[in-house]
């Protein structure tokens, strides 16, 4: 008797639970706590709401894995997290824009869910460009490489203004209107700061004269949050000029417009395609795939997404149009300029461990000082900022630390990759110290480029690296 009652009760509970699981996965239920009107409206503007069949794909259909593939586990985890956030946090303080970046979106969109509905990656009306991209996806997945649907279709769930996934042929073709068009480069007669002018454009930028000297490169073992590759040694550098700020989009686009080529070449046809190389003409970047500026805006923000090769080609082009010798900095020059005579973790006073509290009981970080000098995770978790957002270092250089990491021409020891320095908007306080080192990751940064062959000009998956130009001086320097 009790057994039967138990059975019936159990059945009711299970049935009820099933109901509860469904009831707590409706759009209304989601919206009852997730108070983010912008996400709701962008969802309603998106292609998964206004589907051709009239069916509205709901929140839980993309933001939870398919049933039977970890649905309940994930539901309990995210449900728990959401309830906690709802009690303890103020949703108006969330950076919703940051939550929409690919990096963050990958954590709450499930590929298994995408392909559960989109079983056929090659529908009859798929374009040739789409076919090539899906073929790439198929071959990569078969090799065991993880590729996300939203790497290319980030706007599938929520509408994103001006989102492009595809060859962006129109990129940067419109020239900025300016009053002044420089007819010649700047005249430099002494080893002093000057303003370089790009002939034929309205673009100029500040170059800072850095007298040579000897300094201690790397960091002491006692430095908080130090990495083992920051070995200390005495290094001497000659005098050089270095740009006040990272190469801006305005500067970079001048190069792009002047040298961009639409066609792509291949060297696999043997010598019958060997044509005379015009050594004087610099062939520049092909159109990017997607939006290299990530829709963050261009102008004075640092140019990003360009490959190391593209940055080097930019320097060659700049040298040609100005008649001077521009290049990427070597690592020692970079750190010398960044430190600007300081030997502390930053070029201003402060303790990395106090700026960045690690661990659950780390307490609240004291970030008032670092916030005024560096764009890093603490004040710009999701994107680059314009140089005016920070104060300069003692030698007048901005954003040496943070904002975007910068290419150096050295090879990082033990790899075939180039050194990058300075950390970026993605790093914590420990990652933007003057001694922090890192290197390029060519394969990973091209992972989602579906073009064949992959672009040598644009990284499809790296938005936190830019560069700064250095100019050699032939002027006699008195020390």
């Amino acid at each position, binding site marked *: 008797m009790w057994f039967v009652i138990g059975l019936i009760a159990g059945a009711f509970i299970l049935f009820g639970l099933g109901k509860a699981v469904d009831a707590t996965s409706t759009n209304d239920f989601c919206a009852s706590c997730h108070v983010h009107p912008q996400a709701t409206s962008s969802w309603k503007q998106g292609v998964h709401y206004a589907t051709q069949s009239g069916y509205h794909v709901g929140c839980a259909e993309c933001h939870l894995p398919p049933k039977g593939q970890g649905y309940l586990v994930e539901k309990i985890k995210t449900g728990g997290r959401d309830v906690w956030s709802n009690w303890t946090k103020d949703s108006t303080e969330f950076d919703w824009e940051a939550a929409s970046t690919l990096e963050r979106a990958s954590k709450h969109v499930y590929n298994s869910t995408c392909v559960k509905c989109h079983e056929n990656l090659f529908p009859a009306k798929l374009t040739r460009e789409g*076919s*090539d991209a899906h073929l790439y996806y*198929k071959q990569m997945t078969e*090799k065991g490489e993880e590729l996300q649907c939203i790497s290319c279709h980030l706007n599938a769930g929520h509408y994103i203004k001006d989102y492009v996934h595809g060859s962006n042929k129109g990129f940067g073709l419109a020239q900025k209107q300016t009053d002044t068009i420089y007819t010649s480069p700047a005249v430099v007669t002494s080893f002093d700061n000057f303003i370089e002018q790009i002939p034929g454009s309205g673009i100029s930028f500040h170059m800072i004269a850095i007298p040579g000297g000897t300094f201690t490169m790397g960091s002491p073992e006692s430095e908080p949050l130090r990495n083992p590759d920051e070995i200390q040694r005495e290094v001497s550098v000659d005098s050089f000029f270095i740009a006040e700020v990272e190469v801006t989009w305005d500067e970079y686009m001048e190069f792009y417009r002047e040298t961009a080529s639409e066609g792509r070449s*291949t060297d696999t046809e*043997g010598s*019958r395609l060997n044509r005379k190389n015009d050594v004087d003409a610099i062939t520049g970047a092909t159109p990017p795939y997607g939006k290299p500026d990530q829709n963050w805006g261009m102008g004075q923000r640092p140019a990003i997404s360009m490959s190391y090769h593209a940055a080097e080609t930019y320097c060659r082009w700049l040298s040609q149009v100005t008649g001077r010798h521009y290049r990427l900095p070597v690592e020692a020059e970079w750190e010398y300029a960044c430190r600007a005579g300081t030997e502390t973790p930053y070029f201003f006073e402060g303790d990395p461990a106090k700026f960045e509290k690690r661990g659950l009981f780390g307490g609240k970080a004291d970030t008032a000082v670092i916030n005024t000098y560096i764009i890093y995770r603490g004040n710009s978790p999701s994107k680059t900022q314009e140089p005016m957002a920070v104060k300069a270092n003692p030698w007048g250089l901005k954003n040496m630390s943070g904002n975007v990491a910068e290419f150096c021409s050295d090879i990082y020891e033990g790899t075939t990759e180039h050194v990058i320095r300075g950390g970026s908007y993605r790093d914590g306080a420990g990652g933007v110290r003057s001694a922090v080192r890192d290197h390029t990751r060519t394969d990973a940064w091209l992972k989602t480029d579906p073009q*064949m*062959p992959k672009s040598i000009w644009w990284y499809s998956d790296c938005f936190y690296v830019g560069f700064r130009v250095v100019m050699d001086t032939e002027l006699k320097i008195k020390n």
Partner: protein
Amino acid sequence: MKKSPISRRNFLGTAAAAGAAGIIVPSLITSCKPNAKVILPVMLDKAPDGPLLKAGLIGCGGRGTGAALNFIHAGPNLTISALGDVFTDRIASCRERLAQDGVQIADEKCFTGFDAYQKVIESGVDIVLLATPPVFRPEHVEAAVSAGKHVFMEKPVAVDPVGVRQILASGEKAKGMELSIVTGTQRHHQHDYVATWGKIQEGMIGDIVSANCYWNQGQLWYREPNPSWTEMEYMIRDWVNWSWLSGDHIIEQHVHNIDVINWFTGKRPVSAVSFGSRQRRPTGDQYDNFSTDFVYEGGIHVHSMCRQINGCENNVSEWIQGTKGTSNCQNTVWDKKGEQLWKYDGYKLDAEGKMTEDLAISPYDQEHIDFVTSIRTGKPLNEAEFVAFSTLSGMMGRVSAYTGKLVTWDEMMNSEMKLGPKVYVMGPVDVPKTVPVPGE
């Protein structure tokens, strides 16, 4: 390249592709499990009956006409209802030949010009048979599949990597639409080859350690220019001698043998280093000999040779070596001492009851029987990927010989190389016409 799930899947895909209706390919047939009993694909002697199937032939030369005849004789209720070619004389000769077999094609169903394929596809056919020079194949397959047509296509299927990827994507589209794509790599439909393949899969020669393949023959046909022809017309009429039209003979002809190696090993080449040259070919820009060292997945070396020069030693065959024995891939397996372990015994018998080496049904007929059977039984065959990979394999050899450089699978798969002029019109042809010279 590591042995990844993909190679095994391809391999099984081929197994499925090799047969016709109701094939059961147990999942235990993989190269990791030798000695398992291999169930060979069922190949019927005649395709089953069904509602009338109308095919359009695109490319009405010798092979196209042959394929059309193979098709209509594959079973009951099959016909050719439209013809397309760039040349009217080709249409006329094909029409005349088909009439001898009782197939009449109306004037309004005969289309000429570079867009004839589009008109054939739109003429109300269920199936297209594609037999133009291979440079046109990717575009034709793409159009046919997008229009929901089943496809029989001659090998090779492309002359460049861009075309190979177009074939791969069309093949995937066809899967989604449950369309059949059968290709003219007819050894997959040849009883003796299929039976031998089964023995190798069962482990009769052990693990495969190396392989060789050959297509060495005399000079192939060619045409001299004719003053009344434009350059484009001349090149197409002389197509087996021009690299942009045929892909060169390492692909155009030798793809058959490379395809057998890919099929029997269940692997594909990772890299290739190739020699080649042009000694005696009278027209065009192609080489007339290639010798290629392919390295396959797992470090297996495969040597491939092809030649089209008169008065030399000829040989068209494959050879595969394993840890326990060897096979000619066609009908015989030997042990390491040269003792015969197995020989195919399904050939026709002669008047005295002795076994010949002739098959009762030619593979050219069998491939169409299997094609029609797959359509009528609703069990689509899709050989697009396999033949695209074989074509790409041959292409590695060509590019390596032309450049003198090592060429990898990944390089070729990712290459933007596209041969031929940007647009097809009768008139001068804007392509390089010099013979490639390797090295610097």
